[in-house]
């Protein structure tokens, strides 16, 4: 031993050290296993799983951290981690579709209710949730909006909502303005506001999708004027370019832009800039959803935004309250290996106390919650929008017409505003995009 070479000594030492560590490692692991088994006996659901959850930016944690908080609470209770990934609104549909198409479907993803869900191939990707306990506590619109081909496929914690012209009642009173019912009256109103250096209509024009929302609201009046229009659009029997209300609307819309009713630089306004413009009374009206005023009030308390009211877009003869099919919903991926964990997650979120927490943190979706456990809190604008809509109500095109894409439509409208396309060409461009998909799906 005395003649052992230094290298050999080192090797022997290292080997002995490694074996000792190995032994320690083994015993530690054994301990862990036993502990793990014990835990498993105590709480059956405790697993080392992570469920992935993809949603659009403005659908999650909006104005709060409520989604993250509920996820954390769920993880604490069950040990199941929730990996919530938020994607910018503009690109959400793109990213999700790409994920689905490339076989990287998340365990949970959010989609629009109504026909909006169709473009994500419900039969192929959505799990059937009809037998979940919480389904019985759905309010009717939530059940209808989340039902596809007779099966409940979505977990919805939203509010049925619609888009209308929110107006600052103080400003309207100040200039003795009344709710406009026709485009002529609307023009006069806007002229008065403009003459007084108030932006008549604030448009968040950098967001292409918001331009698309405008046209989407013209669907119900067109359907009312010629019943069966949506069916014909959805079966490709009629084109957008053939609907005269749409062309009239776009012509009037362009006139508004050219007359400067949308302010100085509408194309640079981001969504967030709307709160300030309305909150500081720089602008008098805004195309928003009925709970939008709550968000303005939250950010600009002095604005008195809670008192503001709404009227339907008074263009192309519209007098209808156009609304969604219930906003959006979470769906479970059909072939997810964590389907049971996902169902446990939905069941957790559907507990009355968690729903209450959720809706309390989200003033924007309080008007008409999707579960019977939570009381509805209609906003001033929601109530007034119904009063100002003698034509009744209807589902807007975003939720009622196949292959509708707010962003794509909005880009054509932006193009029209900047002189690139005529109103007719906008409609033809929409038709062309839809034709591609009708052709592609033709059997």
């Amino acid at each position, binding site marked *: 031993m005395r003649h052992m070479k230094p290298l050999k000594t080192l090797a022997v030492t290292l080997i002995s050290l490694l074996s000792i560590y190995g032994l320690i490692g083994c015993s530690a692991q054994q301990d862990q296993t036993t502990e793990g088994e014990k835990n498993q006996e105590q709480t059956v659901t405790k697993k080392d799983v992570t469920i992935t959850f993809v949603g659009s930016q403005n659908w999650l944690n909006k104005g709060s951290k409520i989604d993250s908080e509920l996820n954390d609470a769920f993880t604490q209770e069950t040990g199941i981690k929730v990996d919530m990934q938020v994607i910018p609104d503009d690109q959400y549909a793109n990213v999700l579709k790409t994920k689905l198409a490339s076989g990287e479907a998340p365990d949970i993803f959010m989609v629009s209710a109504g026909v909006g869900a169709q473009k994500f*191939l419900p039969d*192929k990707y959505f799990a059937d949730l009809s037998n979940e306990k919480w389904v019985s506590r759905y309010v009717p619109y939530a059940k209808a909006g989340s039902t596809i081909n007779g099966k409940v496929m979505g977990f919805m914690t939203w509010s049925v909502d619609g888009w209308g012209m929110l107006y600052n009642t103080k400003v309207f009173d100040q200039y003795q303005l009344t709710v406009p019912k026709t485009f002529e009256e609307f023009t006069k109103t806007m002229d008065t506001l403009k003459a007084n250096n108030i932006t008549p209509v604030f448009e968040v*024009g950098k967001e292409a999708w918001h331009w698309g929302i405008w046209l989407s609201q013209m669907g119900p009046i067109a359907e009312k004027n010629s019943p069966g229009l949506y069916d014909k659009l959805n079966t490709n029997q009629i084109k957008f370019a053939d609907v005269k209300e749409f062309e009239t609307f776009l012509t009037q819309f362009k006139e508004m832009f050219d007359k400067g009713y949308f302010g100085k630089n509408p*194309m640079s306004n*981001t969504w967030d800039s709307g709160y300030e413009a309305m909150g500081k009374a720089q602008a008098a009206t805004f195309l928003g959803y009925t709970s939008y005023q709550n968000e303005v009030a939250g950010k600009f308390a002095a604005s008195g935004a809670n008192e503001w009211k709404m009227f339907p877009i008074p263009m192309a003869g519209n007098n209808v309250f156009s609304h969604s099919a219930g906003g959006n919903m979470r769906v479970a991926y059909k072939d997810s290996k964590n389907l049971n964990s996902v169902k446990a997650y939905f069941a957790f979120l559907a507990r009355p106390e968690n729903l209450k927490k959720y809706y309390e943190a989200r003033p924007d979706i309080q008007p008409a919650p999707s579960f019977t456990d939570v009381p509805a809190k209609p906003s001033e604008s929601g109530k007034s929008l119904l009063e100002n809509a003698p034509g009744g109500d209807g589902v807007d095109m975003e939720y009622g017409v196949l292959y509708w*894409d707010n962003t794509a439509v909005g880009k054509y409208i932006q193009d029209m505003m900047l002189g690139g396309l005529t109103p007719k060409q906008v409609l033809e461009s929409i038709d062309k995009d839809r034709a*591609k*998909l009708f052709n592609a799906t033709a059997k």
Partner: protein
Amino acid sequence: MYASKLYSWKFILPAFLLFFGLFLVPNLMGFYYSLTNWNAMSDQVKFIGLDNFREVFTDPSNFRFIYNTLMFALVTSLFKAVIGLALALMLNEGMKSKNVLRTIFFMPVVISNLIVGLIFQQIYNPDTGILNEFLHAIGLGALSQSWIGDPKLAIWSSMGVEIWKAAGFNMVIFLAGLQMVPKEMYEAADIDGANYWNKLMKVTIPFLIPSITINMMLNVISGLKVFDVIFALTNGGPGRASEVINLTIFNQFGLGTYGYGTALGVLLFVFLAVISVGLVKIFTRSEVNAG
């Protein structure tokens, strides 16, 4: 023998297999899918021949993104190289704070393109952005613009961002190239009575040809492939005024027309291949001549 010094072909096998599996196969599949009506709404993929390509070239609304992409590549490549070279020459020697300045000019390269896009959205804001405020402050208020809201300006504003961002990268490559220029050449030129301009044109530039080649190659390729800066800054808007080919591909995928999107991708690929090979040919020829 010379031949025996070459490595066996077996050495390239691992790399080639990876390249084949992860790059060539997907690309070849892309070629096939570009000939189909692959889409989001149905599971069926139908072979439709060259219809997608026919549509790309017969739809007049596509000419704008083709023009935008080419202009973007051309303008940004030139300006990035010229500004990069000027910075490199300034910061090569003789300045006390050159290391600090080098870092500052290189910094934009490190920042994520999406963040750069969001920052410039604010800088370009016509009402509150610092660019217009600055113009007003120095008495040039008349030059203030709706930088990304004006369809004629949007693509140019995007080019400005790309140039600002990548000029520093060009600078670094040029700085490295400048280290290769032997000092003796300048000394000899000084003795011959050459002025700065002579030395730049006759000594510096010829030695920099390899750096210029690599910079121009990278600039043109990144210019044609531009996506994230424009995506974050204008998202191709207003309307489709600042749309470039990669954004169109992205949007087509969003609409669910995957086959058409893939066809555009194939076109970009072919175009890039032709341009890259062409550029290498042009620049290596002048390298040989210079040598």
